[in-house]
């Protein structure tokens, strides 16, 4: 097993990057605007249902941060027909699992359950899109739960506090700068009317994508979904504001000092493009970032951890699945106490130096191969396909674009990657953060 064999192997497997669709998903749009996506995979008698609402904390009015996440919690409180925790109780009784999550651009709910209960689960989800019943007491108690969640995730975690603060600097004008869970002082003031109006105005079929994956038949699913969602009226009360942020003329350094911190950590977040702007460019950037900073075989890791032994860890990644701007996240953990400016300068220098010399066509082929293999791993299971498709559609990509992802991948060449990385190395829209004692 010598290195020479790498190139042979690349030739051997590259033809696999063919034009096949990844998921073979089928789609159907109801008159009221609800999108249904079905990924048939009958290997076990189990279905994953995910409903994706294509809004999250993005649509909260100023001063009411945390609303989208608040209502996500309250969606488990029951309806007139299925009161209290009927839904959760039903899922549990059939051996299913469930949960939900909120992000900037979407809110999603999911269940994994034995396929014979498909119709009932579809009915229950459709029912809570329109018939949620809430008491003031539900809201009062849940506010306490959410504050505990905020304390658990952020207030008692120095690293999360730093991230929250860095994002608020990076996006001075955009909702991405506000925490999804909400600022503590604003969560404390959210009341029954705030949450109920948010629900009434935005939980509409035209704002949702329903994904069913697993042991489910498309035409059967279509029939059931039409039956339970068909009568729900669409609404255009959701006004989306597209807001972008200005280019920075200054540099900002954010520091969090905490007596509990024993290990210095350096971070930097850059504002950058997203897949919704250009799939090809974002894919080239993503591949470039993986070569440069992804995992323990990246250019920066090899250089600064393996060779120069300055950091115990260094890395970065690109997150471009968003309606607005995406971001690039970098971090470094020095072996010895270091000045933050020195760390930043060193990484800048290494990035610039290595784009020309170390971002090679061979490395690109390797990353493309991995990308392709990851798309196969994504099909092992039933929840993953629903997650991938739901997230991509929620931020504004098209099903066809997702299915043909590997065709686009094939076209990415080294010049495209270098162009993106050069652009990145000149990007001044960033904020640097430091966590220390």
């Amino acid at each position, binding site marked *: 097993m010598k290195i020479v064999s790498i190139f042979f192997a690349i030739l051997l497997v590259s033809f696999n990057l063919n034009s096949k669709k990844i998921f073979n998903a089928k789609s159907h749009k109801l008159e009221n605007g609800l999108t249904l996506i079905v990924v048939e995979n009958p290997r076990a008698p189990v279905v994953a249902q995910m409903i994706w609402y294509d809004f999250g904390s993005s649509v909260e009015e100023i001063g009411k941060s945390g609303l989208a996440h608040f209502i996500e919690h309250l969606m488990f409180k029951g309806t007139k027909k299925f009161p209290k925790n009927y839904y959760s109780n039903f899922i549990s009784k059939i051996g299913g699992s469930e949960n939900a999550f909120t992000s900037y651009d979407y809110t999603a709910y999911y269940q994994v359950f034995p396929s*014979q209960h498909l119709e009932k689960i579809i009915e229950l989800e459709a029912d809570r899109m329109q018939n949620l019943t809430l008491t003031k007491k539900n809201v009062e108690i849940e506010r306490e739960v959410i504050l505990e969640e905020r304390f658990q995730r952020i207030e008692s975690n120095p690293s999360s506090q730093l991230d929250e603060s860095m994002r608020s600097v990076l996006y001075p004008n955009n909702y991405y700068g506000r925490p999804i869970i909400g600022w503590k002082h604003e969560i404390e003031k959210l009341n029954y009317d705030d949450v109920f109006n948010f629900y009434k105005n935005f939980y509409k079929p035209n704002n949702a994508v329903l994904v069913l994956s697993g042991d489910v038949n498309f035409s059967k699913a279509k029939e059931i979904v039409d039956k339970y969602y068909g009568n729900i009226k669409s609404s255009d009360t959701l006004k989306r504001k597209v807001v972008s942020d200005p280019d920075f003329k200054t540099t900002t350094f954010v520091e969090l000092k905490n007596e509990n911190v024993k290990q210095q950590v350096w971070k930097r977040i850059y504002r950058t493009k997203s897949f919704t702007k250009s799939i090809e460019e974002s894919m080239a950037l993503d591949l470039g970032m993986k070569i440069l900073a992804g995992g323990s075989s990246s250019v920066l890791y090899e250089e600064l951890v393996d060779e120069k*032994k300055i950091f115990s860890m260094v890395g970065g990644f690109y997150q471009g699945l968003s309606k607005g701007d995406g971001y690039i996240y970098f971090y470094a953990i020095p072996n010895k106490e270091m000045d933050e400016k020195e760390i930043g300068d060193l990484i800048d220098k290494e990035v610039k130096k290595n784009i020309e010399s170390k971002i090679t066509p061979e490395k690109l082929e390797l990353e493309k191969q991995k990308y392709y293999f990851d798309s196969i791993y994504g099909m092992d299971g039933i929840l993953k396909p629903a997650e991938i498709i739901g997230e991509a559609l929620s931020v504004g990509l098209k099903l066809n674009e997702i299915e043909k992802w590997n065709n686009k991948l094939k076209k990415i060449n080294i010049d495209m990657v270098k162009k993106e990385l050069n652009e990145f190395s000149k990007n001044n829209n960033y904020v640097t953060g430091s966590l220390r004692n």
Partner: protein
Amino acid sequence: MKLVFLLFFFFFQSSEALDFKKLKTKSGIEFWFVQDNSIPIISLSFSFRGGSSLELQDQHGLANLMVSLMDEGTRNLNSQEFKKLMKLNGMKLSFSSQKDRIDGVFQVISSQADQGFELFKEALNYPKFSEDEIKKVKNQISSSIKIDQSNIPTIASNKFNEYFFGDHIFKRNIKGTIKSLEKFKRQDISNFHEKSFQKENLVIGVAGDITDKKIKILIESVFGKLQDKFTIPEIELFSNLSIGQQVYKMKTPQTSVLFGHPGLKRNNEDFFALRIANYILGGGGFQSRLYKNIREKKGLVYSVYSYLLPFENDGVIVGGFQTRNKSVYETINAVKKNWKSMNTRGVSKEELNNAKAYFNGSFTRNFTSTSSIAALLKIVQYYKLGENYFQNREKIINNIDHEMVNSVASKYFKTENLFFMIVGEPEEK
């Protein structure tokens, strides 16, 4: 229970998932296998009994250091070369050290099976353990130990182990200490490697796109050369678990609490009944009593749970929550109250029926991916639940009646045996 029966019937008919084969390689390694050609992936899940329990008194953290070096190069490949070949073949390999075992997962794209298994063989049998990599990985573990020191839940978990297990070896943190790591030499790591990966301590589950014949050859090529040189000492029973509470003060707005209590080994005959009782108490997601009474009714926590944790030697029940400093003791009292009610009043018939339906219905969720099938095949062997477990499981569950679960609940849930580890700044009431 008619519904459940129908489900299983359907399952036998429509899926290969339960139809596993017990295979044996040339040198006698037994493993369980499900052929699944629906996706071009092979997934392997394996465990070696022993893990951190094999560390001697002065070897604290050695198991974790050793497994962290397993993907850092082989006799013929340096770390970077090895990682590139892993990527190229769509291969994933990870090891993790636990208190009583080492767990591993290996996956490869089936067209690359030969190359992937070859790399796996090299990594498992001939890891490089180069001085450079040892130094690097020691630095990484040290950083991670320091990062843990500002993470309240992780501190709580370490402190919990330290106090709860009394003088038992399980009191030690898997990662060791910055000081204990320093002194390990290449030879220590290499000896520990040999002691950790012995054939007789191995269990394997495999699922995926490959034939019986081929997988037997590949399993033999990876594991066939392992030796059985060392006798593995038995891990002692827990004779001295702590009770009461311990406070570790830290400046934080929210306190983390972990609790523990004696439990059962996985193959104890009362295990499933206790598991069902615990599901009702604190295990069942949004359905448990702890969740309903402490989160849903009072809003005291975001999450509260309990679960059975069986080990090779013995078992415990553990749980936890985080709450703001002012409500720590109120929440502890609520946990105790619910614990006590399991002992004195037991569970209702409705709760029991719901829990049994959950355990019957949830099993098929394990069959949705090659990795979860492989993991299940391994776990059933690891806990010695028997070849017929897949057929018997439903019967075991259905035989648990109301009287039985209540007698088990009152036998095992003892409020006076609870131990609470409190990390933060709890306000006295």
